[in-house]
């Protein structure tokens, strides 16, 4: 468990938005599982990291919570993407690609740079 890393600052919001976009409305546990699985268990999410991030997105109007029943009939809070969240996801995805390309260009092998 020691080699699992924390999420990069600023990336968690993007991961949550993308997860909700792909999976539809989901509760906190589901979001955490999905992110951990997608990362190939390289990321572990503390409650103390995940829930404040969700609340922040809620405060920013990107997600909307609603109480509902989970698959084993337990009361759970489901988060869904709002139109504002959708827009933010599109923009953040584009920005992230641009940043990634830029960094990749910088870190390209030396011979190619010559």
């Amino acid at each position: 468990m020691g080699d699992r890393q924390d999420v990069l600052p600023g990336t968690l919001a993007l991961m949550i938005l993308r997860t909700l976009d792909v999976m539809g409305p989901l509760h906190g546990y589901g979001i955490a599982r999905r992110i951990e699985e997608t990362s190939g268990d390289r990321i572990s999410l503390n409650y103390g990291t995940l829930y404040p991030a969700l609340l922040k997105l809620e405060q920013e109007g990107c997600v909307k919570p609603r109480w509902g029943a989970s698959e084993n009939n337990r009361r759970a809070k489901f988060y869904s993407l709002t139109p504002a969240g959708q827009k933010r996801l599109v923009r953040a995805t584009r920005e992230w690609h641009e940043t990634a390309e830029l960094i990749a260009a910088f870190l390209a092998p030396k011979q190619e740079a010559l």
Partner: protein
Amino acid sequence: MRHLRAALARVAGFLAGPREDDDVQEELEAHLEMETAENIRRGMPPAEARREALLASGGMTQAAEAVREQRALPVLSALTMDLRYAVRALRLSPAFTAVVVLALALGIGANTAVFSVARGVLLKPLPHEDGERLLYLRQSTEATGANDISFSVPEVRDFREGVPSLAGIAEYSPWSMVLQGEDVAVRIQAALVTGNYFEVMGLRPVLGRLTGAHDDGPAAQRVMVLTYDYWMSHFGGDPGVIGTDLRLDGQPVTVIGVVQSAPFYPEPIDVLLNMVNSDHHLSATMIEGRTHRMTRVVGRLAPGATLAQARSQIEALYAVMQVNHPEAYDAAAHPQVAAIPFQELMGERARLTLWLLLGAAGFVLLISVASVANLTLMRGVRRQHELVVRAALGAGVARLRRLLLIENLVLTVLGAMVGMGVAIGGLRLLVSFMERYSPRANEISLDAPVLGFMVVLSAFVALLLSHLVALPREGTFAAHIVEGGHRLGGNPGRHRLQRALVVVQIATSVVLLSGAGLLTRTMLRLSEVDTGLATEEVLTLQVPLLTPAELMFDPAADVRAKQRYEEMRQEMASLPGVIEVGVGSPGPLRRSTVRFDVKAESRPMAVGEVMPNAELRTASPEFFRAAGIPLVSGRGFAATDRQDSEMVVVINQTLADRLFQDEDPIGRRIAWTGDVLRFTPISGDWRTVVGVTATTRDGGLDVGPEPVVFVPFAQFLALGGSLVIRADSNVAALVPAATRIVRRIAPTAPIERVQTIAQIKDQSVSPRRVNAALVSAFGILAVIIAAVGIAGVLAFSVSARTGEIGIRMSLGADPRRIQRMVLREGGVLLISGLALGVAGAMIAAQVIEGLLFGVLPHDPATFIVVTLVMAVVGVTACWVPALRAARVDPAITIRTA
């Protein structure tokens, strides 16, 4: 937009308070259950499944806390919580809170009051437009000690033409005039000004107009501008006054405007007049006489010009003037002209006194902060256990620091609020005190910058105090908790700081007490000064019957005035209890403004010797006996010394020594001399010395003796006459009767300076009394605080060492020995404080040397007494805790330790 929305949501969350906590708990609980269920599904036993899930969660409580922080504004909620906690904690120790608030109130209040005075008098920009570019020109002759000589019109003309760095030069001459109303006359302080005066000074009208170039010259209309203060106090701010005609010295003059409130130099002024209001100011003697110096000069620096440029141009020009007009400048007297920024001039006399006040107030702040720091330290040690536990439970050191800061902020805010009251009360006293020293005293107020100063000062004090209490470093909590409360008192570093603070308190007290001692001795010395007068049962009142013009150019009016003075004199002499009444000018102990150079017959001046410049005074035959001025040799005046008899004078001992040294002055002849006589009706004829009087302390008890020439009242102009009434007792009771007599004989004459000799004398003592009282009050305060400080620290040290003392006693130390041990501890502090204090006081005394009189700044008696007093206070303060230590019962302490 997104951020704004988030911020709004958080503010709403903060305002809503902790309400939805259950919601968070439930959500987290659901997460945990789902994870547990998943773990069971993977084949773990239920107990292990839940444990694994808990481990993976990273802490349920922390998570809930993190969400709560995100929900609202954690800093703000923590602050309100801290604030509530701080108030509760302070309410639990009311004695501590009261002492600290009081000490801080005194420190902050005293400093705020003194700062507002310094700001009003020294720092605040002048109300004049571009006031920082105003210069005052001052002519002085170092060798004769004349330090503020006016300028003559030809001199001003030279400056106007020869100093390009000055864009404008205006003249003003203070002039005392009588304003005649319907049935009373009042003397007012006027200034005759050139038309450009207001423009140069950068003053604007509040009402009407001010003077301009067309108000200059003999053909101009007589006009008058009221100062704002005079307009408010005498016309009730009535705008209808503009355009009305008033009678000044018998001449009509039209009020044209009111000028904005501004300080005047050197005296407050009631009205400003154009030059045409004084025939004298337009006369040829005034316009052409280079030595006829009657006007004060202000200039405004030209755009781009610097003070240094103006000064060097003035200096160069003045040298040329001296070469071109050698008859007008006595080279032996070293004449010079200084250009002084007007703002500096305003604070000139106040600066030293302000330094004294700033110093005293600063020391009071130092001592009050030191004592509060000590109290805080002691309280901090008692609370250390609590703080360590709070830190270990997760409060975090930064959070605790913030808590302490908030506690101290609450204390200083309370202190500042009470201090505000101290400042307001003190300010009223200080303003009336400062009026003696600066024309800007009425500008002193508790305005925004002063309050800002107070806030910054308070915040600084709070910050300082909150960093005194030691907090454990992160990661050492456990060790501290194990240590428990017992050994916490023994932190040597803290103890050193406490002791240093006590030493500072003692030293500061010594400095303040020494200052108070020196100033009190100054006051006593001053009131002991012999005025030179034989009695104090003397009442004086000044009744000017003639205007300056009448006095100098109307012989008939002069004769009439002398008759009326004689009538008043005789009527007053017949009042019951009156021994003698004399007439003369000015009254005893007053300074005469009429001064001329004096030469003695057949006595050539030595090379480089400066001609004595003596006051001219007039006296009726009864004057010397009435005023109690002793005759040293020869005779006083007699009724036979009349206008048509031989011209005689009486001189004082100081002049006799200057002119005749060891020779007998009686029968010698002296005369007024100097170019300036040309402009007066005063003759330079020889006059025979018939008597010598003792020198009296005219113009203030702390002022050196001046040469004086008395001439018989009958043989000279009736200068603003003073009636001098000597009675057998309670001379002040004669005031109503004497006033009635003057009113009947001269109904429209002003009656001024109705004072007894004792009151005149007190005028030079009373400012010193205020100095001494202020600093003594600060000093006594400091001593009390310091005494409490020593006692407190020793008591604390004793209680921290109770266990140790118990052990010592059970091993055979007797109570006396224990007592000595504690006394020694206090004694070391006391001696260090005294040594430091005496050294500091020596330095402080040098700084206030100018305020002392008759006492050396290192007056041994003062320092010895102060040191002894402080030592007695200190030892007494050590005694109480020492006695407590000696009464420690070993049986009890060892059991509880």
